[in-house]
């Protein structure tokens, strides 16, 4: 099938489930995209307010405490405690639907020591609610940044260890369908 035929078939059968490759959600708000860009070179960068020192997540355009717009991304410790975890057996997104065929997808919420609560992919299924964890950011195969929680004892200095976790989750590769368009 040449490219033209392939694009015509895609338009005719415009269903995520028929695509050969599916990827995690790409959509972000403008500040969300900024968050992705800023987090590329570091393990984790969060917005800090220069007026009141509040650290916040998800990213916004104003500090939610003092309403100042003096927000700066700073490299931040990802240490925190896992509040709750959950194994997803159902998803609305084709990429995760395909991943779910082999195993449930683990997500959790983490209270960071610096303040905010973050929703994360769980990078290692041994961590349980109440455990100390470390959260890092990484790009997925959609080239957007997502947050991942790993056991606090793990040495994550150096990007190889972090990439290893992302690979084990399958976030660095598209989910494939044989014979898809």
């Amino acid at each position, binding site marked *: 099938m040449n490219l033209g035929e392939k694009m015509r078939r895609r338009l005719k059968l415009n269903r995520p489930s028929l695509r050969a490759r599916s990827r*995690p*959600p790409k*959509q*972000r*708000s403008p*500040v*969300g995209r900024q*968050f992705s860009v800023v987090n590329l070179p570091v393990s984790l960068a969060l917005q800090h307010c220069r007026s009141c020192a509040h650290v916040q*997540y*998800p*990213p916004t355009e104003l500090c939610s405490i003092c309403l100042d717009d003096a927000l700066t991304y700073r490299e931040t410790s990802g240490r925190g405690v896992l*509040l*709750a*975890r*959950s*194994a*997803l*057996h*159902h*998803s*609305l*997104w084709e*990429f*995760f639907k395909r991943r779910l065929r082999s195993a*449930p*997808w683990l*997500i*959790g*919420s983490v*209270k960071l020591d610096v303040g905010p*609560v*973050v*929703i*994360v*992919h769980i990078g290692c299924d041994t961590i349980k*609610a109440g455990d100390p964890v470390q959260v890092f950011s990484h790009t*997925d195969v959609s080239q*957007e940044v*997502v947050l991942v929680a790993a056991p606090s004892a793990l040495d994550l200095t150096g990007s190889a260890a972090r990439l290893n976790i992302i690979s084990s989750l399958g976030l660095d590769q598209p989910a494939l369908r044989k014979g898809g368009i």
Partner: protein
Amino acid sequence: MKGYEGIALVCPVSLGYVKQSAHGAAWFIGSTLRELINAAGIKKSEIDGFAVSSFSLGVDSAISLTQHLGLTPRWIEQANMGGVSGIIAMRRAARAVQCGEANIVACVGGDGAAHRSFEATAANFSSWSIDASFPYGAGGPNAAFSLITQHYMEKYGATREDFARICLDQRYNANHYAPALLGHKTLTLQNYLNARPIAGPVHLFDCVMPCAGGEGFLIMTEDRARQLELPYARLLAADELHNAHSDDPVQDRSGWTHYIDDVYQRAGVGPNDMSCLQTYDDYPVISMMQMEDLGFCVKGEGAQFVQNTDMRFDHSGSAAHKLPHNTCGGQLSCGQAGSAAGYLGVTETLRQLIGTAKDNQIPKAQYGLVSGYGMVNYDRGLCTAAAVLAGAAV
């Protein structure tokens, strides 16, 4: 706070529940409006206030609907706040009528359910969900509430059997309410426990079924209602609070704790006086949280409370304590018709108090408590509202 004296709530309408529909939100809202007009026996031009709630109007708004539906309101409100929409529309409209800004306000919630529309709503719900929750497994509300449920179960020792009490009694109620989409099916504890897992502790029968439908009611003065010979209910007290307890790492309580005592005081009745309770039941844990925060039991004892309480409309359950809860089956058994789901508790309470519920009528219903909850912007529902309604006779 000033009371709502002289205000009448009339003509509860629930319309057109269906799992999927080619009709858009305007059809469900307009059809509900038509039924309201027919039920009240008034002319369309007599409706001079219009409060509307919908998630699926797309590029249209309440104002576009005035032209679609040929209305000329001098008072208009758009309350797109999911599970609190009904109570908020009711409060705003009651004040408008009380202050003479409108004579008859139609409050309508309605949503369509086009193919794959739920997926689109979940993927685009809010900027925070787009940036910071949807990319994590794309579970939609199930994912957020699975974390809340898991945390609640670990903190307070609630079990799936406890949540089943809520779902099973609601299904029994739905078996006696014809429009409920799942009302033709019975639900046993075995079915409930063996259901397909969806997200963590959340299984199939803990989830609502997205659907299309419309809900609505009219607000006017008591004098006008009597003049039109319409049976009515009264609004004794109501309150709302949003983004409360924002420092709690995981939600296990919300805004009601700040105002519910005051609401009971203004209404002159308490939880034990209620003939029925309608909570916003997007997930059973949320109903349990409301029972605690609304003062039916103390925090953390919701599980024990539902085990000891018969929540069927006809008191036919085995538990000694009786509290008819979500007497038409709630969203868990009726389906969740988008924003209309935020009106369901109000319309159902009105039917019970006016005495127009059919097979699921509570005998001699006098007082009803309606509670609203909603809008998971990121990790928790932000909105809360509660209202105490009474029949005209009490």
